[in-house]
């Protein structure tokens, strides 16, 4: 299997009033295509920072991130944004849907940064059907249940068929049933050939992952 995501000796530090804080410290991790890796650890252990750095959103203090062999931090800000749009999907605990867009437009929002090829609408409708949102097509997030909102967020993340899907506590606000739906979906997406990195503090989240990595104090154990 080829390495889809390579994180090499990644560290991220912040300067605070009490001096330097090492949030992530010398972390190395490789995720292959088709692999679903769960990083488990308590709150504040640096999981989200690791995920944002892996997602080309947070420049590491040291180390590097390679996605398909390309270090996004070597790109300009604009190129990196385009790189994200093409290669990475995000799912967050708080869903982060655009509050004034309906379900379909929220899913299609992930194409805003890309040149349109004409297939987006059809693909979005497929995902809507796949996630059981057909009767919610023109509803805005405020009119959806939490489970529906997370399914919309998932559909948005999957629309561009990203090579890497990053999920930050995606089941944190969901009930058991909806949580299972989301986890199954992530596993299915990994099986389809993508790399999935899940960060969570829930011990059971690893049930669907192909590999579970423990994180504590900014380091992988």
């Amino acid at each position, binding site marked *: 299997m080829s390495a889809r995501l390579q994180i090499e000796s990644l560290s991220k530090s912040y300067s605070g009033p009490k001096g330097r804080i090492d949030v992530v410290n010398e972390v190395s991790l490789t995720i292959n295509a088709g692999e679903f890796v769960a990083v488990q650890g308590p709150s504040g252990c640096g999981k*989200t*920072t690791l995920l*944002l750095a892996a*997602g080309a*959103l*947070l420049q590491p203090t040291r180390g590097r991130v390679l996605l398909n062999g390309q270090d996004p931090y070597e790109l300009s*800000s*604009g190129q990196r*944004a*385009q*790189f*994200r*749009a*093409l290669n990475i999907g*995000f799912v*967050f605990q*708080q869903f*982060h*849907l*655009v*509050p*004034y*867009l309906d379900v379909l*437009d929220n899913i*299609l*929002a*992930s*194409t*805003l*940064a*890309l040149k349109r090829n004409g297939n*987006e609408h059809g693909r979005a409708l497929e995902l809507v059907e796949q996630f059981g949102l057909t009767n919610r097509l023109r509803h*805005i997030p405020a009119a959806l249940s939490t489970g529906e909102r997370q399914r919309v967020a998932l559909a*948005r993340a999957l629309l561009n068929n990203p090579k890497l899907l990053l999920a*930050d506590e995606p089941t944190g606000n969901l009930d058991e049933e909806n949580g299972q739906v989301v986890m199954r979906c992530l596993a299915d997406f990994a099986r389809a050939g993508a790399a999935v990195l899940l960060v969570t503090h829930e011990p059971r989240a690893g049930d669907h992952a192909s590999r579970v990595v423990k994180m504590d104090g900014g380091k992988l154990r």
Partner: protein
Amino acid sequence: MNLYRLVFREILHRKLSFSLGVISAAVAVAGLVAALAILQKHDARTEQIITAKEAETRQQMVKLEDDYRKLMLKMGFNVMILPKDQNLSDLYADDFASNYMPEEYATRLAKSRVATINHILPSLQQKVKWPEHERTVLLMGVRGEVYVQSQQQKPLLEMVAPGTMILGHELARSLPLKVGDQTKLMGHQFAVAKINPERGNKDDITVWINLTEAQELLGKRGLINGILALDCTCDTVDRLSRIRPEIARILPDTQVIEYASQALTRAEARQRAATEAQTSIQREKDGRATLRGEREALAAVLVPVVLVGSSIWIGLLALANVRERRCEIGILRALGLRARQILLIFLGKAVVIGLGGAAFGYVVGRVVGALWRDAPGAQPLHIAFIDPRLLLLVLVAAPVLAALASWLPAMSASQQDPAVVLREE
């Protein structure tokens, strides 16, 4: 899905914030449009007032002119044409000219269609002894006027028929003679045809007889010693300067004097009236200009204040919008939108606010301008509702100003670090 759709969806979602922005822009545009409409109306009203005033003045001047013409006619002749070699000292001392010129000069003058004088009357005048009554009188031989313009023109002095005489008031009273009496003058028989009313000048001791008879009595056949005339109502006080060159061109060996100074005084009065009328119009213009200046000054203060106030308000609304959409900005950046696209989203909204405000404000400003009365009780004055240049100006300027007002908040939005936002959220 595109950025325009995103902008419009957001506008529809946050209607209150958008409406406040539009109202703010509209207030600024309405202020500007109303101020310009009021000034436009002011100019139109000024034009109306000045035109009316000018028409009224013209009418008054026509009436004044007619009055003066009548006055001048009542006063009689006021210009005298004399032989060039006539010594004026002698003339004033003797009351008559001692030099002579051909009677034909009068006809030549009339035929030349002279423009600066009218009512041409050739005369032969001499102070003589009236032997039959042992009195010194002024003998004036006159014929009918030589018409310059029309035979219909009413003469200033009636023609004296041969064999008749007209007497001055003092002469008739002292002799005494009355109309219809027969009397002899230098051996010739005359009937008194008319006695002139008292004039208080040398006319009161003048005897008017037919010119040909006077020429015979005085031995001056075919000669005259003066041509009386009435000057035209020239539009200048210095009328002689215009009459003299013209007469000199037609009758080179003559000279022109003013016969009655009252005419000059009246002409001066007429000139003064015309000047006063012009001054009155100018005063009105100055008054209107002052009022316009005051209104301009007020607009020059109010409009910028409203513009700045509206811009600040739009900027604050944009700032609030940016803060409210912080999380949205973070996720859009995570989805790959560039900083420039985030900037466009916020500036696009500002442009829509500006356009909405421009359209709304233009209508409000124009309505205010239309309802504005220049003065209490003034007649309503209509101005075109659509002023294409002004409409274009506000449709361009308002979005630009709104975009400028939103520039800093939009820049701050575009510079937000998505990682910070997503980690905090």
